[in-house]
């Protein structure tokens, strides 16, 4: 049985209590993008400043949510700030892979194709690995990432 310590790792609680890059950026030039988790009422607002090549030069986060969604957003902001689109894309795929492998095994889909997981260091984000043992919370952990992807897509459109 997964215990609470699998879910609420100390580093997660640290990001929850002391969120990084909290706040807003002036729009424009920043892009404002909202994400909702309809299941639990989590909402996240990302402010994204892009560099000339479409990379994320600066990022701020506001909104409200549980410790998992908030800490995931905080860790994500630290991980993607100053990164190129390609690097962010790799990180996103690596994070999503970490979040979805267990989903497949839970459903007993042994033949499911493993998601193409790029070989990148996730750093602090590794702490969220335990979330997959609590399937209903996976959406909390991926909310910030889906919102970021939406923002990058909007910016490049």
């Amino acid at each position, binding site marked *: *049985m997964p*215990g*609470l310590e699998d*879910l*609420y790792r100390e580093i997660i*609680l640290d990001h929850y209590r002391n969120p990084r890059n909290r706040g807003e950026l002036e729009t424009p030039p920043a892009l404002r993008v909202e994400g909702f988790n309809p*299941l*639990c*009422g*989590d*909402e996240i607002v990302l402010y994204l400043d892009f560099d000339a090549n479409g990379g994320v030069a600066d990022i701020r986060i506001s909104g*409200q*949510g*549980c*410790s*998992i969604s*908030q800490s995931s957003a905080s860790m994500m902001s630290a991980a993607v700030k100053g990164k190129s689109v390609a690097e962010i894309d790799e990180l996103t795929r690596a994070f999503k892979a970490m979040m979805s492998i267990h989903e497949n095994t839970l459903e007993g889909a042994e033949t499911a194709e493993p998601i193409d997981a790029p070989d990148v260091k996730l750093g602090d984000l590794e702490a969220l690995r335990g979330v997959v043992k*609590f399937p209903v*919370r996976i959406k*909390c952990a991926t909310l910030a990432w889906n919102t970021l992807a939406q923002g990058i897509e909007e910016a490049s459109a």
Partner: protein
Amino acid sequence: MAVSVDPIDGTAMKAQFPLLSREVHGKPIVYLDSAATSQKPLAVLDAMDDYYRTINSNVHRGVYMIAEEATNRMEIARALVRDFLGARSSSEIIFTKNATEALNLVAQGWGRANLVAGDVVVLSHMEHHANIVPWHMLVAEIGIELRWIPLDNEGRLDLTELDTLLNGAKVLSVTAMSNVLGTMNPVRALTDAARKAGAISIIDGCQSVPHSVTNVQELGADFVAFSGHKMCGPTGIGVLYGREELLEAMPPFLGGGEMIRDVRLDGFTTNDLPWKFEAGTPPIAEIIGLGAAVEWLNGVGMDNVRAHEIALTEYTISTLHERFGDRIRIHGPSSLAERGGVFSFDFDGLHPHDISQVLDQHAVCVRAGHHCAKPLMKLLGIGATARASVYVYNDTADIDALADALDATGAFFTL
């Protein structure tokens, strides 16, 4: 602490509910989410099992014996529901999938036949999405106008402008009890005001019908919707009560078998009430299960259910306030007479998902989220709440377990 007389021994009641004897994470389960769905007594499980084991057959079709028995059993269930609601006739009891489908049936059936662009439908700020979205759909389709009854600072309907809101309205559709705040609304005053204004009244009885005596005639409502699974019955079965004159005048909602009298190449004529609104093979086992739930609740007595919940509500509010003081905020009215056993709360500034996750480790089941009432959440200025809710099988030990688990939750997040 004042203690209301409790006619029901919740602890002894648990023995009739098989699920309540199981353990979660190695601890006896503490089920405090009956506003989402109730547990089922053995009597209901047995009735459904018996149907499948001994009389499983389609209803209103076969001439053989077990088909007749199944049909009888189903229609007995309808009569039980009729009497449970104090309705005049079984024709007024329409079986649906759930309360959501029942409300959609009224919006799509009555609404599309009777509403035109600019017509006003009055709802309240405390409605469940099931009593909002079907009307939004008619806004998009027909161009009706929605008006909203506001709330006061205790989460009660603010009726000071009710007559103005109802002026020219065609429909008033409100909940009898909020699934978030626990507020019990003055239904009779609302239906009286609607009738005076020339509007029909629709009552969402999801949270009220399972927990107190309901008499649709005394309520003065034209339609009442509720779900079976919140009143000890199975999922997949709900009820729409409708006044016979209104149902007779309404076009059918879903078309198919059972709801027809005659079908020709160039058209069809509808069956009599209530079958006119029950297209296709009905959820027979679920209807029989609902009938068994009604019989079971009749045996307990709905007055006793309400008295039990008043006593537990009093205990819950005083226990949580005594133990946690300003650390906890319980939404909804403070008066016991105006509220049911639903407790949405904020605790230590923690997100409800985090609260319910830790409570789960202590085998305490509560709901966390927006409770399908996002407009209300917005009004309260919060994204979500944790919600504990009680029923006939809960006791003060369950509330003590909740308080102990909250204690542990607070300690965990302030480490």
